[in-house]
């Protein structure tokens, strides 16, 4: 009897591109699984999906999925994606990025993608450091943490990705972790369903770099940390103010209906043509 192949395989470049580059215990593969399950739930045709990324560990993801895939320059995934979506609005654009890629070098692009409300889903895998280059600090490295470029501890405050995206105008903002996989699957699915700019931050362990530098243990211990250090929105509601100290909140923080950029542009074209005809 031949073994049953999981349905996820049909979305992977399984025969050609594996094994992947990610380290044992890395969380990025779990996020890729969530994305694939959400894509399957959406029923999208593989030909109509563009996965775009920048540079870094997370940005290697497009190689492994059987979509139209675009691995770009550092931080620019959303800018490339904006061009793709503008030129062909029928395409479903998914941008996958790490915390350094999306928030440091790509910080300008992500706030403007959110402000414009371009119909792209951005998935940010946040592992608190630059993994590919050997564990340097990123805009989400927690204060005090050690990395290869903060040997005496991190002195800069970090970004709260979700608050940043809320403030910049994204239509949908959520935070999950690779420990809470079903929750993450659902968040990504809802983000795909949302018209406009949607963001899902997925907290993930980097045992090789961040974990080792901060003596957080191996993959299992770091998974345990994601479980212990996070609470969901209803847990947060039930807790007294002091009790939530040091906990990271998971959940859907923003889910609003605002007109995506593409729709506005269509209206603009229509109005421009009408005005030109009226002039005649």
């Amino acid at each position, binding site marked *: 009897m031949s073994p049953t192949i999981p349905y996820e395989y049909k979305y992977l470049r399984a025969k050609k591109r594996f094994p992947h580059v990610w380290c044992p215990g890395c969380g990025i593969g779990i996020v890729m699984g969530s994305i694939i399950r959400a894509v399957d739930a959406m029923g999208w045709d593989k030909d109509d999906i563009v996965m775009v990324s920048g540079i870094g560990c997370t940005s290697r993801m497009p190689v492994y999925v059987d979509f139209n895939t675009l691995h770009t320059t550092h931080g620019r995934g959303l800018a490339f994606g904006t061009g793709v979506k503008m030129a062909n609005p029928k395409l479903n654009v998914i941008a996958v990025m790490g915390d350094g890629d999306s928030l440091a070098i790509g910080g300008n692009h992500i706030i403007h993608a959110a402000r414009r409300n371009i119909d792209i889903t951005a998935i940010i895998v946040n592992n608190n450091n630059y993994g590919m280059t050997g564990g340097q600090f990123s805009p989400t490295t927690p204060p005090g943490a050690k990395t290869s470029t903060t040997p005496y501890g991190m002195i800069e405050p970090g970004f709260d990705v979700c608050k940043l995206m809320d403030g910049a105008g994204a239509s949908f903002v959520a935070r999950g972790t690779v420990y809470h996989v079903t929750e993450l699957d659902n968040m990504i699915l809802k983000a795909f369903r949302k018209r406009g700019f949607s963001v899902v931050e997925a907290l993930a362990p980097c045992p090789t770099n961040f974990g080792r530098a901060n003596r957080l243990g191996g993959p299992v211990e770091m998974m345990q940390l994601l479980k212990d250090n996070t609470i969901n929105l209803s847990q947060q509601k039930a807790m007294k103010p002091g009790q939530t100290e040091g906990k990271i909140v998971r959940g859907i923080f923003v889910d609003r209906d605002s007109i995506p950029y593409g729709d506005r542009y269509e209206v603009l*074209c229509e109005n421009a043509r009408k005005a030109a005809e009226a002039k005649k």
Partner: protein
Amino acid sequence: MIVPWGETRLVQGNEAVALGAIAAGIGFFAGYPITPSTEIAELLAQYMPLLDKKWIQMEDEIASISALIGGRLAGSKSMTATSGPGFSLMQEGLGYACMTEVPVVVVNVMRGGPSTGLPTQAAQGDVMQARWGTHGDHPVIALAPSNVKECFELTIKAFNLSETFRTPVILLPDEIIGHMRERVVFPLEEDVHVVPMPIPDVPVEWYEHYHESTSNVSPMASFGSGYRYHVTGLTHDVHGFPTRKESEVIAKMERLKHKITRRLDELEDVQMHDVEESSVVIFAYGSVYRSALAAQAILRKKRKTVGIFRPVTLWPFPDRTVKEMLDSKDVVLVPELNQGQIIHEVERMTRDSVRVVPLHRIDGYEITPEEIVDAVMEVI
């Protein structure tokens, strides 16, 4: 009708670029405001929605060229317009477009530099940046118009060459050409040659995104057309997947080079006036070529014959023709709106016995015919 086909109009250089882009079938423009190129973005913001084409102002020049490449991969002919400082920021994306062989058009209306320099004044300071601005070995095509009509024609040509050679093409008007107004007799639409976006005709499973054809260029499928492929700035194999295999790395890099160097005849575009019969030749491009023509007329009245050699296509440099035509001359005068850039290419292609004389102007103003006449009289 946006392009005044068959009509005669007073048109600005930048306006002619915008009209040329429409004529070439631009589908997507992404840009960031910068003097002295802004009119191109402004006019396209006006024209493109009327034609249901996509126009966007991005958050910076890096985002602009990135969006441009995304737009072309999704099946729209794409162009941006910028000037020196913005062109510097675009080098990252230019390298990516070279490496991934995505055809885009970048207009750089050259102003004084370095840095913020002289925003509203002319220079030819980005000639070498156009050639070597982005890191690594890479192919480059750059065209330099000398009048408003050429702004229209060479913009169309830039699109055509980018599609033919699957590579970014840079249009390099200087500020004088971008901002001047001239009478232009527009051609009839049917007389203009526009290269359509090449489309692959092989079955999906046979498609190689970087097929090693005899021309070194293969048709590029668009996202959403059913050909699913990978694009990366990492050195890649014929399917587009990253590779470090020696033979594949060498094959990629050689093909990138050969697609230009083995088809130089299709790219070379020079204009020559009285070069054969003159022992003194003025080598000029862009706005300086206009002054050279005027200087030649003045000198003719003084019974002095000088030739003019003008490259329309700056990159690839017309090595063979320069060698053939200028190697036996006494003097080649190279007036440029910089401290000496293209002159090194002229020196490279001529023997030591040829005196290659520079004439610089770096204050943001034009090189006048009189300055060229004086320089010629000095060397004759």
